[in-house]
């Protein structure tokens, strides 16, 4: 666990460096037009502290000078940094980055958790069925489906689904799903409305998970079914149903659970493309917009956030594994 701190430092410094290098001599958020003079650009860059050397900007972002000043090691006033939980202000509109993240995070979580749930709830039965009826037509069909599921770019799938379930249905006068956004304007908080907006994006996002996890579930189940203890259980005369659904399944699900745990970082960044296509107001889309807009502080805020989640995710996966698989506890 102690190793996480240098990891976080590594992540943030590499990211900061990359962003700084890509930024160039521009003012984030200001489009070049002939009415903006070079002196304005220089002045604004100076006001934002962008003309300082890279390492100094990074230290300021971390907040080390502020900490040092609080410990009375140095004088002067320094901005707070991320070490004190201050994610800084967006370079484009001056508003706190944490506000942006907090506003959008629930939307992303809504989307990704739903997608993961759909993925899990469908992957387990599909995988188990494939394992149990190994070699049959159903197994082949399921395998084909899951392999096909990762063969389609998500924006492509999204376009097709929108054209069919949103535009076409409405053209035929049938009730149709909305094609964009997380909720309808001026409606307030209406769960049904939000749900109708959630269906298509979550479906598209879950496709990828579904395909991989059902394969994984199947192979995990097969592995478990070939184990000695399963043969023993059968030999003892236990009903097939008990063998499969109580003993084998529980053990087969374990590796799947750790896979899910490792998807924790994807909770934040995984849905970026789906968010773009569906105009979903989430963090992924926000991060992309700001990356293109060279808004360092915003991007760093998100990268740090995502990195923390990765670390937590790994931790969670380890814990889950320990809970579910007693063998691990004693190693």
């Amino acid at each position: 666990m102690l190793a996480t701190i240098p990891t976080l430092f590594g992540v943030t410094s590499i990211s900061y460096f990359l962003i700084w290098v890509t930024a160039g001599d521009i003012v984030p958020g200001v489009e070049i037009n002939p009415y903006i003079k070079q002196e304005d650009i220089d002045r604004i860059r100076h006001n934002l502290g962008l003309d300082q050397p890279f390492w100094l900007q990074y230290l300021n972002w971390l907040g080390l000078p502020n900490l040092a000043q609080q410990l009375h090691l140095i004088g002067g006033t320094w901005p707070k940094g991320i070490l004190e939980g201050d994610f800084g202000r967006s370079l484009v509109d001056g508003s706190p980055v944490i506000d942006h993240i907090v506003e959008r995070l629930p939307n992303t979580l809504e989307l990704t958790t739903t997608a993961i749930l759909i993925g899990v709830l469908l992957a387990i039965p599909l995988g188990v069925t494939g394992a149990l009826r190994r070699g049959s037509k159903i197994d082949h069909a399921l395998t084909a489906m899951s392999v096909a599921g990762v063969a389609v770019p998500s924006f492509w799938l999204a376009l097709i689904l929108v054209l069919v379930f949103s535009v076409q249905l409405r053209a035929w006068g049938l009730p149709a799903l909305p094609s964009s956004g997380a909720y309808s304007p001026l409606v307030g908080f209406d769960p049904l409305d939000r749900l109708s907006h959630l269906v298509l994006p979550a479906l598209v996002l879950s496709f990828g998970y579904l395909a991989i996890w059902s394969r994984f579930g199947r192979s995990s189940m097969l592995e478990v079914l070939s184990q000695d203890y399963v043969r023993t259980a059968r030999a003892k005369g236990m009903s097939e149903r008990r063998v499969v659904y109580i003993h084998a399944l529980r053990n087969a699900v374990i590796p799947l659970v750790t896979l899910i745990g490792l998807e924790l970082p994807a909770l934040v960044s995984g849905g970026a493309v789906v968010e773009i296509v569906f105009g979903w107001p989430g963090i992924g889309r926000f991060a992309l917009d700001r990356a293109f807009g060279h808004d360092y502080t915003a991007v760093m805020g998100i990268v740090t956030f995502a990195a923390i989640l990765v670390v937590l995710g790994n931790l969670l996966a380890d814990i889950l594994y320990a809970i579910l698989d007693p063998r691990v506890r004693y190693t």
Partner: protein
Amino acid sequence: MIDPAAVEVALPRTDVAGTAFRPAQSYWSESWERLRANRVGMAAGGLVLLMVAIAAAAPLLAAYVVHHNPFGIDLYATFSPPSGAHWLGTDEDGRDTLIRLVYGAQVTLTVAFLSVTVSLLVGGTVGLIAGFYGGWLDNVLMRFVDILLSIPAIYLLILLTILQPKIGPVQLSTSDPRSLAVIIAIVSWGGLSRLVRGEVLTIKNRDFMLAARSIGASDLRLVLRHLLPNVLAVMIVAASLNVGAIIITESILDFIGLGIQPPTASWGNMLTNAQTYFYHSVWLVVLPGALIFITVLAMNLFGNALRDAFDPRLKS
């Protein structure tokens, strides 16, 4: 996993009268037999090979078969449907779709295969070293991999493609499929190294390894002659499954606007461009999408067949 070198030593060459014995067969040839028996897998592999062949022959096709080049615009014949002159129709600038798909295959497949190869080389080496030596070297290397894997891939890709860094004499830019391949490889080698390291750890202390070490084999010999062949199977399977994923990644990068830039054709950017022109020509949208789908599907099926061939317990 059986060490091929060891098999020759271990199998007794007894000749009990009247008993036919199965000749010693290496792991590799056994796997090949299993693969050959898997008809779906072989068909898929054959399909991919065909795609690669067509892609490689792109200039020949342009000159002798299709009689168009992928950059020849014709503003008076935009969006034309399939016809005798243009077998698959033309795009928004009047360029022949068929030949663009063929050149696009060249670009997309180059990106995918090259990227996977580089990933394998770098990730495999790092994984082997980390797993084999262990200790502080393992710690440092895996720490670095952790850091790399903690940055969400999509942000890293964006930053790298905006950055267009220079590595030695090579300028990485996204208009060149080779440099795009390297950029994607930079982002994805981490996972592969972890996989390899895991395998190495499993194998490292097996009997045959200890045996080889005890007879005084050098580190290099141990790694190359004994460790690598066993790990290779895992690496190959992972690599072939990654090819499909990278084809999709390339199309997603094009969608965001950072992948291969027009007028160079790649399946991904043809697909992305075509979305705006959906109402003018459905062909433009369907064809690249279908090709991506078929190729990725074939590659995945082949990868699965490889995995089943190398490790028959999981076969259906």
